[in-house]
């Protein structure tokens, strides 16, 4: 299955209000052909509304959604030709696996022999070869997931939409399926829009992530950029763990607790805050290195979590910061105890200043 003709999606100024609630406040987003784009946001952020608008199940109040150079916003869902995987799979319970997967092909009047071949190929792609005769009720959650996927890709759509497809699976299977979906996307190459509220899932899977909150895009960027240079406090908070500390601006010098912070790039305009990811912070003994900002504090609490330990440290100005420490033998846990006085080091490249305001 090759999708040399994967379609780009161009969303511009899409608005949708439900009474007084503005689900989408003029969202514009360009998704490249063949890209894996994840819409990430908390529940009620508008990410599902946006996906439903792309699929045609929600009629926006205004805006444009183009597939390639075709305006799609006015066409009914059954004429859009996009594949979709629903959150609860939406498999037809009165049809077996093969008939579910063949359904879109029969609607397209594909010849019987070809239908059988395409169904077999799609089932093989999702590693369910030979399951065609099974009833839907006989399948496990993960298998239903795969059938839903096979049904969505069997007619070779050039755009694939997924609405939290893994949320009903347990953690192990979910993580396995994330990698599998990623590989499938590489193999099939269709433009994919994936909705999730799970920030780790978004980081694992996406080419780019569109973070959405209160119906507006907060940041659209690669997972690494989103994680390492969040555009605002919401993105910093929502993705990964972070401590956000107040800083004082003194012209172009940014001071934390009186000391000037060293940064790689010039600080942006406006009021700022310092964002520290727990795993980027380390205990140091030598406080004089150039590429490191240092902070002094006391260990308040130590939470052992197996693969790592979370240390809460009260800094000299009374603010608290979290540090994630390795648990290997000979590591920091050998010497650090609650109440100990410590020095923390943060690499200048990890010293991220973000706008102090809550939202974009």
């Amino acid at each position, binding site marked *: 299955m090759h999708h040399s003709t994967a379609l780009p999606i161009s969303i511009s100024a899409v608005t949708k209000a439900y009474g007084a609630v503005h689900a989408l406040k003029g969202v514009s987003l360009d998704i490249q052909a063949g890209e894996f784009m994840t819409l990430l946001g908390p529940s009620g952020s508008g990410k599902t509304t946006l996906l439903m608008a792309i699929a045609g199940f929600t009629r926006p109040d205004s805006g444009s959604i183009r597939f390639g150079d075709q305006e799609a916003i006015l066409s009914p869902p*059954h004429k859009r030709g996009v594949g979709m995987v629903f*959150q609860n799979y939406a498999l037809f319970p009165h049809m077996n696996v093969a008939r579910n997967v063949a359904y879109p092909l029969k609607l397209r009047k594909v010849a019987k022999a070809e239908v059988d071949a395409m169904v077999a190929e799609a089932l093989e792609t999702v590693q369910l070869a030979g399951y065609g005769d099974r009833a839907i009720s006989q399948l496990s959650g993960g298998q239903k997931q795969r059938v839903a996927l096979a049904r969505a890709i069997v*007619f070779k759509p050039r755009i694939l939409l997924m609405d939290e497809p893994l949320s009903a699976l347990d953690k192990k299977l979910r993580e396995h399926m994330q990698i599998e979906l990623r590989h499938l996307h590489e193999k099939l190459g269709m433009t994919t829009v994936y909705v999730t509220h799970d920030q780790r899932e978004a980081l694992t899977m996406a080419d780019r992530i569109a973070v959405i909150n209160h119906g507006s895009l907060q940041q659209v960027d690669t997972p690494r950029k989103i994680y390492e240079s969040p555009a605002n406090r919401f993105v910093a908070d929502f993705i990964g763990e972070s401590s956000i500390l107040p800083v004082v601006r003194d012209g172009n010098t940014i001071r934390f607790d009186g000391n000037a912070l060293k940064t790689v790039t010039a600080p942006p305009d406006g009021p700022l805050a310092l964002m520290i990811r727990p795993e980027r912070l380390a205990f140091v003994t030598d406080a004089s290195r150039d590429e490191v900002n240092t902070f002094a504090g006391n260990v308040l609490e130590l939470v052992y979590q197996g693969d790592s330990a979370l240390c809460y440290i009260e800094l000299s100005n009374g603010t608290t910061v979290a540090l994630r420490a390795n648990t290997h033998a000979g590591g920091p846990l050998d010497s650090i105890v609650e109440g100990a006085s410590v020095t923390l080091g943060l690499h200048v490249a990890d010293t991220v200043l973000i706008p102090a305001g809550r939202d974009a």
Partner: protein
Amino acid sequence: MMTMINASGLSSDARRERIALLGLTSPAVMVVMLVMVVPVGWLFYLSFIGSDGTVSMENYRRMLDSRSYTRIFVTTFQVSMLTTVLCILIGYPLAYFLSQLPARAANICMLAVLLPFWTSLLVRTYAWLVLLQRQGILNRWAIDIGLLDEPVQLVHNMTGTLIGMVHIMLPFLILPLYSSMKAISPDLMRASSNLGASPARAFWTIFFPLSLPGLFAGALIVFVLSLGFFVTPAVLGGGRVVMVSMQIASNIELFFNWGAASALGVVLLVLTLGILFVASRFLKLDTIVAKGH
């Protein structure tokens, strides 16, 4: 070997629980015996007693010999079948409409469906008589606006019987149908549409097959209830539509022939049970097909 700690205590506890449960069900068992098994047994017994008081097949032989009895059974099945078909034709679209409404509106409309259900059957039947008779509202109105030149016979015949029975049976069809339609996830229709099905195609390939169990259940209730119906055909049929239940009544009221009435009752009961049995096999088969397909 494993030691069995408390094994005998636990097993006697389990036995005590079984006895206690049996004790709790005994009142229900006795009520069922008293109001079900004894009367039905008595009915069977009476049906085999001839007019001279001895055991005989006389009552059943009469049914086979007399053409009027055959006609009564044919009428009964005809009325029940037509009522069921009409209920499906009217009830399916109505139940579909209800199932697609938002919860609030659906509740109000459901109330409208159920309201007649809570008024007396006799009152509703006589109300139809008032509406449908030659000088009734319907005929007068149709003449007034020039639709008819003279009144048409809407009551005291099959038409009147069917109008009345469909009205009374409709909720029995709509309730199970509505609940089976509500159980169909809107996501299934969305998925169908997303995969390329027009709204009509999505309805016939997804919604309709999934609503069939509810439709079968409702239709079965309507059909079986119609088989034994008395009041409505008696009032609206005007003596022209004679069903089994009415023949039973006249056997007792006019001829004081309990044997003949009992035999009719037995035949109706056996036929109804037979239909239920066949239908349940058919329904079970249907669910097996749906699962194993």
